[in-house]
């Protein structure tokens, strides 16, 4: 990609032909990865916000801002089932703003998905946990990760369990 124009460089790719090692993608900086891989980090987050401290989705109150307990919070998020057809369904949460509905497992915006997706009528909403990474200096959320299916590397189940042992029961 040309840094100035922002367009891919076919010339650069041509130069690289026949010289590259197998493709590798490494997630180098992920708040969720820190959360999942650090047992101590998880167990340190024993303080849970009360419902009064989390009046809105990902909203951090003064009570949390002044807390020195951690920089991670959990917040319940309502998810809804959308479908393109009977064989293609997925759970979405409302990320607000320009993002709108976002698919929980892939974090792809509903508006970016091909086809016409619509809310499945008659299906009850469910609650998932969202892990919110908070800047402890200002109390502002700077990263959010949704509870994921077990096959995903973004799964938060183990961490949720370590935070809240009753979750495993």
């Amino acid at each position: 990609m040309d840094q100035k124009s922002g367009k891919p460089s076919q010339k650069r790719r041509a130069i690289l032909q026949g010289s590259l090692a197998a493709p590798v993608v490494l997630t180098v900086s992920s708040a969720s990865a820190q959360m999942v891989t650090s047992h101590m980090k998880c167990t340190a987050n024993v303080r849970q916000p009360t419902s009064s401290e989390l009046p809105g989705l990902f909203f951090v109150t003064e009570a949390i801002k002044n807390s020195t307990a951690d920089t991670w919070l959990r917040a319940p998020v309502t998810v809804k089932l959308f479908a393109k057809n009977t064989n293609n369904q997925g759970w979405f949460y409302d990320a607000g703003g320009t993002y709108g509905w976002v698919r929980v497992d892939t974090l792809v915006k509903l508006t970016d998905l091909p086809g016409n997706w619509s809310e499945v009528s008659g299906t009850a909403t469910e609650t998932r946990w969202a892990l919110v990474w908070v800047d402890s200096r200002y109390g502002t959320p700077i990263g959010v990760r949704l509870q994921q299916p077990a096959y995903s590397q973004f799964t938060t189940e183990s961490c949720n369990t370590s935070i809240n042992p009753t979750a495993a029961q």
Partner: protein
Amino acid sequence: MTSQPSERLPSVRFAVVDGLRFRFFDDEAVVFDPLSWDAHLLNPAAMAVLEFLLEAPRPGPDVASLLEEALQPGEQAQADVHARRLIDHLLVLGLIRAV
């Protein structure tokens, strides 16, 4: 055994999602996803594929062809396997989407 998305949908094209930020270090690049707040380090081959998909949505076999040309001779025979794995990985990470 469950098939991977790229195996089930060989004719589906893949495109890079909107809003990604790129930072280049020689032929490698860090891709930051402001939606998930993840940053990913892509080696030259992975970045070449992402650039390829940035140009236009492409099907999996096209990605395999690109890798067959770009990879070292010892890796070229595995280009199709690498392409499938990479596409599946990029889908899971949310860096590309099926169109």
